[in-house]
């Protein structure tokens, strides 16, 4: 295998692999957040909303 082939294959495969990882991370992140949010996350969100309401006025 020639050095030029190694360089071209190397750069291409690095980009292909990390592109697939990018798309997969977006996809699985979306799936997890849409369908598999666990109780802890919900509690955190509710706590944040409650805190925002309390800080926003009224008493």
């Amino acid at each position, binding site marked *: 295998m020639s050095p030029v082939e190694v360089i071209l294959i*190397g750069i291409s495969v*690095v980009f292909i692999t990390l592109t697939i*990882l990018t798309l997969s*991370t977006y996809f699985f992140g979306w799936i997890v957040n849409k369908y598999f*949010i666990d109780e802890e996350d919900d509690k955190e969100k509710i706590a944040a909303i409650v805190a925002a309401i309390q800080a926003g006025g009224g008493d």
Partner: protein
Amino acid sequence: MFEIGLFAMSWQQAAMIGIGLLLIYLGVSKNMEPLLLGPIGFAVILANMPLTGITGETGLLNIVYTELIGTGIIPLIIFLGIGTMTDFSPLLANPKTFLLGAAAQIGIFLALGLAIIVGFDLNAAASIGIIGGADGPTAIYAATQLVGERPEIIAAVTVSAYSYMALVPIIQPPIIKALTTKDQRKIRMGKMRKVSRKEKIVFPIGVTIIVGLIVPSALPLVGLLMLGNLFQVSGVMDRLSNTGGNALMDIATIMLGLGVGFLMTGDTFLVLETLKILLLGVFAFATATAGGTLFGQLYYKLSNGKINPMIGAAGVSAVPMASRVVQKMGQEEDAGSHLLMHAMGPNVAGVIGSATAAGILIGLLA
């Protein structure tokens, strides 16, 4: 028969003891990668004392190198430890920064090309190129797989990789400055979204499977990195995470220092090739930084100026030094700028990118 060591000492051994002292000085007094340069420097002194037999076939240093480093075990264990200490949240919050980690790997391949031009064969050139990945364990693992029978190259690659990692704050800023404008360096980036625990758990498993299927030869490095990370993010394997990131990592680091010291004997290290490798290492680091920054410029254009192009420079995997450099340079232009977490995305992507690049080269050439 008893012999006095002093009379058997060659000038090369004396010079190497001087280099060992210098490495200890840099580690201890200048705080440059002290956990690595300290043990390596001491082991260099051990390895170059005459008539001790410590580097002989049954000598301690020879055994440590042959059984633990030459086989690739220690670099992989260190990668597991790194996994326990790495937070991939910035990357999960902004997955497009993965590609900045890919762009910075261009330094590996440019240095490979230059190494061929200056006379190295393809396997040696690939080992030298990996210095541009800015990742010590990856560089050692790749070198042992690619040029296992040539200790002089492994030693120079290792010293180069770890020394330049410590020099990131000196090497990167002039290159970043040359490739960005003052206004670009001032760009503030918004707050990142919070990443859920389940995303963090799915990530190491997913990366392992995907990388394993595309680049099988990268799996030892990426797999161990991700296993360590799973220990950390699961929240139920604290004991394993603590051991992997502390005791095991420390043991592996000591063994690495001793093993690399074994390689640095006068007759193998004091050759012209070492100097060439050290210079090629700087080139690899510099072009990696440039590649990441230029890709950052592309992101800057595509985002209509919302992404600070400097974060691309953190795509070299020297974690977290490269991110700190970006943060510091951002604050020099605008004291209220906080780029650290934004730079951490490409930074940890660079760890995966350099391990993938090493795996590709091993798969093609080993």
